[in-house]
């Protein structure tokens, strides 16, 4: 079991920068990947795996002693590929084959990838499946946690609200929801499509604890996630990470349609300074 080693904020920043560049390079080679969604969540995944927060075992990805991570916004987790490779879940050479014939690393990840728990391509399933896992772990007397990452647009799906009610009803204090709140769904800003604000108040009204944090400030994010994982609040916990969709790629940041935008190899080279 690894992941207990906690990196300091400077190290986390450096790691996040590296994984952001890796994500851009994967996208340059596999333009089918959803790069903007994946860039907003880089610090979230970095903090989980390097901030001493998520217990994981690359040698045995389904080790019962692991914390469960459900990446409900699966399309927005291409940035998790380089992290899983770096942790040793699969060889780093696989990162050069994303979306290539024969690769297990697709444009949307499936649980054939070591480190992924569930099928994620369709949005809105993670909170419910995660609630079932959390209930099972409690009944089995396990102290392991279930961490679910969703986007904010994903919260338009009605099934997540069924799950939020259920998790509060059963006081699932081993369930942590991280909302990668990049304020965008596919076609526009969520506030202009179906507004979710005030989101933290909604969670609190539903019986959850809710914390809001800058999702790109690794120090603050690790602290907020750490609080969510260890507080004595008697129910499920939400951390709303305010992020920028397309973070690190100026042509994507601020574009309401960045979800469906791709970056050219030349743009990626300029952003990353070329090969690693």
């Amino acid at each position: 079991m690894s992941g207990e080693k906690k990196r300091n904020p400077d190290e986390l920043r450096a790691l996040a920068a590296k994984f952001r560049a890796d994500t851009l390079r994967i996208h340059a080679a596999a333009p089918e990947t959803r790069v903007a969604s994946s860039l907003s969540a880089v610090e979230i995944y970095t903090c989980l795996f390097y901030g001493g927060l998520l217990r994981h075992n690359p040698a045995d990805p389904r080790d019962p002693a692991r914390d469960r991570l459900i990446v409900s916004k699966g399309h927005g987790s291409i940035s998790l590929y380089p992290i899983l490779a770096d942790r040793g879940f699969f060889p780093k050479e696989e990162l050069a084959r994303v979306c290539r014939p024969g690769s297990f690393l697709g444009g949307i990840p499936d649980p054939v990838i070591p480190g992924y728990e569930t099928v994620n391509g369709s949005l809105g399933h993670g909170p419910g499946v995660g609630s079932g896992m959390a209930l099972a772990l409690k009944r089995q007397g396990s102290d392991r946690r279930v961490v679910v990452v969703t986007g904010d647009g994903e919260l338009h799906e009605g099934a997540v609200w069924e799950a939020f009610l259920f998790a509060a009803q059963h006081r699932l204090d081993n369930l942590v929801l991280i909302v990668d709140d990049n304020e965008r769904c596919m076609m526009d800003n969520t506030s202009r499509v179906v507004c979710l604000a005030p989101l933290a108040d909604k969670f609190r009204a539903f019986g959850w604890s809710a914390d809001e944090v800058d999702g790109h400030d690794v120090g603050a994010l690790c602290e907020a996630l750490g609080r969510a994982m260890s507080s004595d609040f008697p129910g499920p916990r939400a951390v709303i990470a305010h992020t920028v969709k397309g973070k690190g790629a100026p042509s994507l940041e601020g574009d309401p349609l960045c979800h469906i935008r791709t970056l050219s190899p030349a743009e990626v080279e300029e952003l990353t300074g070329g090969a690693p």
Partner: protein
Amino acid sequence: MSGPKMRMRDSFLQAMKERMAAEKDIFFLTADFGSPVLDGVRKDFPDRFVNMGISEQNTVNVATGLALEGFRVVAYAIAPFITMRCLEQIRINLAILSQVRPMNVTLVGVGAGYSYEVSGPTHQALEDIALMRALPNVGVWSPADAATAAAMARQALDEPGVRYMRLDSHPLPDVGNAPTADELRRGFRLGGSRGAAAAIVSTGYMSHLAAAVRDELEAGGIPVRTVDLMNLSSPDIAALEAALSPCRAILTMEEGFIGRGGMDGLLAAQLAPRLPKAKWAHAGLAPHYSFEIGPRDELLAANGLSRSALAERVIDLINA
């Protein structure tokens, strides 16, 4: 029909309750749908019984999470809702996911066909067979009587995988002897006359009607083979072929829309090519919702599914 009548849900739940007492890894979810026997489950196993509320989508998702952590899970609700309200949850988290991660989940839907005859089309399950059959990795089990439902409860616990069981809501007599292990494995039960030139293949409630049609025809000197098809996803087709090889006229009967991928689709695609000498006809419901209030047998008769009309169809098929 004769013999004592019993509800499938009661025998299913009783069998489940007996196993839950000894086996601590069975979890029972209901989408706010109950029965007196289920009250016993709730009382005896408060840690492994959850009323999910009226939320079939979340019921399937929570069942998935429990199953991924090693529980065998039953999710219980009204048939159209546990199949169609949450079809995408079933597809993503049971059909697709179970291909990669083994799990044991049994969806139980009460109200097969016109069971809820006075509740109208929202509560009737006429598309569930076709929709569940469309999903790889999901078994479709359709018991015709309480003894079969109880046997299938035990089978569901003993076999890994995902399946949908459609139960009638009414008390019904047994169609025949309780299915043997071999019959459960093959997915069908034979009745009537061995070697008959005519056969009726049916499932669920229609197997009761099929038995009545058979008895009427046999009283008139026409021997009939009946097949109660219990498994609508993966029956033993070679065994069915062997059982029906003498037949020259085969009528299928189901309480669901025909021509839409239900039991008729299964038999037409997989069995008919193996029995080229047989003439086939498919009886079932026209693609049309019924708002009429009436006894079930009247609703069926309005669709040409009365005992006499079906007996005539068999005779017509023999003479065709």
